[in-house]
């Protein structure tokens, strides 16, 4: 693989534009291994151009204006969305329905994946295997085995995979992390999250043909085939356990990432988890309306509690509280869109205190997170702030929270072996075989 990539990056192609066939100079030409070209400009493609995908596209167009990136292609299973993305992206950007055309293009260095969750792992692994750097939306995966495959693919192919949980490169998260790690509230033994409920599909509709322009089979991808229903998509995939996993896998992926960072607990991979919830009384969506999940970590001992709604301590829709021996610190949202608590912002590092990594190129935290990804590529270390291994561990918390709810029992998770202790049935849920050819 290494040899292939060196070969690709030192291969000069003629530059030409033609509809349906692009042949351009790869940005990696004349560049060192794992680095963008001499001009530092990454050639990128967007896979999934719905809500968050359009934010990514807007970010990349700004990087393009600044000469740091070039948007080469956009892709979506829905031609309606794809058409809108092409309009936004402008001339010279190639539209595709099938992301694998993008992976075939040697001139593209990196992809940004913002498809529904059930696609994240497959597309990330495939992109890595084709030598592309990846920015993938959170949650990284929908099963533990998918997450493991993503980590393995990133390492084997020496590419940078950044997961889109932006708080670790956002100021709110940084101020909070720095303050907590340096004892603003003393030793923290408990962290609680509050979040509003999952919605109920209170206007269910029968199955129907997919709307014109949507490739339903491709939208389903790795999932078992079933007829189209308007309550699956576009954004509603979030409210089904198999494809979206509800708030705990959506916002939880943000909040848990920040909390693990603040608690310096990325290496604390073993825990127990218990969950309870109230399922909806009707409709297609099956995520529990309310939910409470408790994770217990050992050595050091602390508890993480997901509450939906939980005990709302702050002012906004969701957030978390660090309960320390000397008080508490609240973080609204997860450190991205909202500023940190003023106490954290004004916290003075004590003598001998521990500084925390910070990327500080952009005020906009979405831009900053991508700048951090670029930096990891540019510098060649390939370990962005939310490297896929961190994203996988965070997603494991989310996925096992849901699994404990689905199975209705306490699970003991061995993070070293990545298996549930003494529960063969639960271990079968660590993977979900995928529909061919949409396989890892």
């Amino acid at each position, binding site marked *: 693989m290494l040899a292939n990539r060196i070969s690709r990056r030192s291969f000069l192609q003629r530059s030409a*534009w033609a*509809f349906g066939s692009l042949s351009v100079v790869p940005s990696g030409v004349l560049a060192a291994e794992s680095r963008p070209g001499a001009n530092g400009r990454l050639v990128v493609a967007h896979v999934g151009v719905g809500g968050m995908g359009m934010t990514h596209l807007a970010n990349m167009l700004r990087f393009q204006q600044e000469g740091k990136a070039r948007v080469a292609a956009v892709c979506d*299973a829905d*031609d309606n969305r*794809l*058409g809108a993305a*092409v*309009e936004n992206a*402008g*001339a*010279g*950007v*190639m*539209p*595709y*329905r*099938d992301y*694998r*055309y993008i*992976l*075939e293009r040697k001139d593209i260095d990196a992809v940004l994946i913002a498809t529904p969750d059930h696609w994240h792992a*497959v597309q990330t692994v*495939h992109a890595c*295997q*084709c030598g592309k750097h990846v920015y993938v939306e959170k949650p990284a995966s929908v099963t533990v085995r998918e997450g493991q495959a993503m980590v393995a693919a990133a390492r084997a192919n020496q590419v940078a995979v950044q997961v889109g949980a932006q708080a670790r490169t956002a100021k709110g998260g940084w101020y909070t992390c720095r303050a907590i790690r340096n004892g603003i509230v003393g030793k923290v033994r408990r962290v609680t999250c509050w979040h509003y409920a999952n919605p109920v599909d209170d206007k*269910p509709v*029968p199955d129907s043909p997919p709307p014109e*322009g949507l490739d339903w089979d*491709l939208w389903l991808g790795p999932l*078992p*085939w079933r007829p189209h229903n308007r309550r699956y998509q576009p954004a509603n995939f979030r409210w089904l356990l198999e494809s979206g996993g509800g708030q705990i896998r959506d916002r939880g992926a943000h909040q848990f990432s920040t909390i693990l960072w603040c608690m310096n607990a990325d290496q604390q991979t073993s825990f127990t988890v218990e969950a*309870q*919830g109230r*399922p909806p*009384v*009707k*409709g*297609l969506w*099956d995520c*529990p309306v309310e939910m409470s999940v408790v994770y217990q970590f050992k050595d050091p001992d602390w508890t993480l509690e997901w509450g939906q709604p939980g005990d709302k301590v702050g002012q906004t829709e969701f957030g978390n509280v660090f309960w320390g021996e000397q008080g508490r610190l609240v973080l609204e949202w997860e450190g991205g869109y909202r500023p940190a608590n003023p106490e954290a912002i004004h916290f003075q590092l004590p003598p001998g205190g521990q500084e925390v990594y910070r990327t500080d190129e952009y005020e906009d935290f979405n831009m900053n997170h991508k700048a951090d990804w670029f930096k990891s590529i540019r510098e060649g270390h390939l370990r962005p702030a939310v490297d896929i291994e961190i994203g996988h561990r965070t997603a494991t918390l989310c996925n096992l929270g849901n699994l404990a*709810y*689905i*199975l*209705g*029992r306490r699970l003991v998770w061995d993070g070293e072996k990545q298996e549930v202790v*003494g*529960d*063969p*049935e639960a271990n*079968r*849920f660590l*993977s*979900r*075989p*995928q*529909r*061919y*050819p*949409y*396989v890892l």
Partner: protein
Amino acid sequence: MNVNATPNAPGSVEELIKRIKNPNDAAGGPAWQGAAACGAEAIQPLAELLLEPDMEVARSAKRALYCLTRHAGRPGADAEARAVEAALLPLLAHEKSAVSREVLWMLSEIGSDRAVAPMAALLANEQVREDARCALLRLPGERPTAALRAAFRTAPEDFKYALADSLRQRGLEVEGYPSRKLVPSRQTTVTPIAPKPK
């Protein structure tokens, strides 16, 4: 969800079915959560409801079946799991693929060696063969691998690629039938915007 703590569990299968059919959401909606208490006996009558024209009843029956299966799969309840498996197996031969497809996935969660042959028989059914392949991949042990290998020998050419992938996932070497996972196939109707002439 904690099925053990489900309040107001039904006293019988008949009561469970009656509750699930209740058109009042407040009563019928949560009824499936009590299914675990009814055990394997409830499987056949619940499966009949999977084809109910009322989508809420069908959905609720499906959730009840999964609830029951998952509860039976808990550690230390092997006899319950085997009873549920035994009740699910005849449903694999159901004339409606919508039923056999769901049953395959239920068996993927708790199925033992005993389930392998009837599940593998569906690898020859074009409607559900992909679900059967996936469900077998979830079963541990040698027998599912042997069943997939046997199916590979006789499968139609277009299905052999998927089976070859399964066998490779199980650590076997397969000659030919290279992976198609990276082969693009879908075309968009959207066209790019042409650059402005200079």
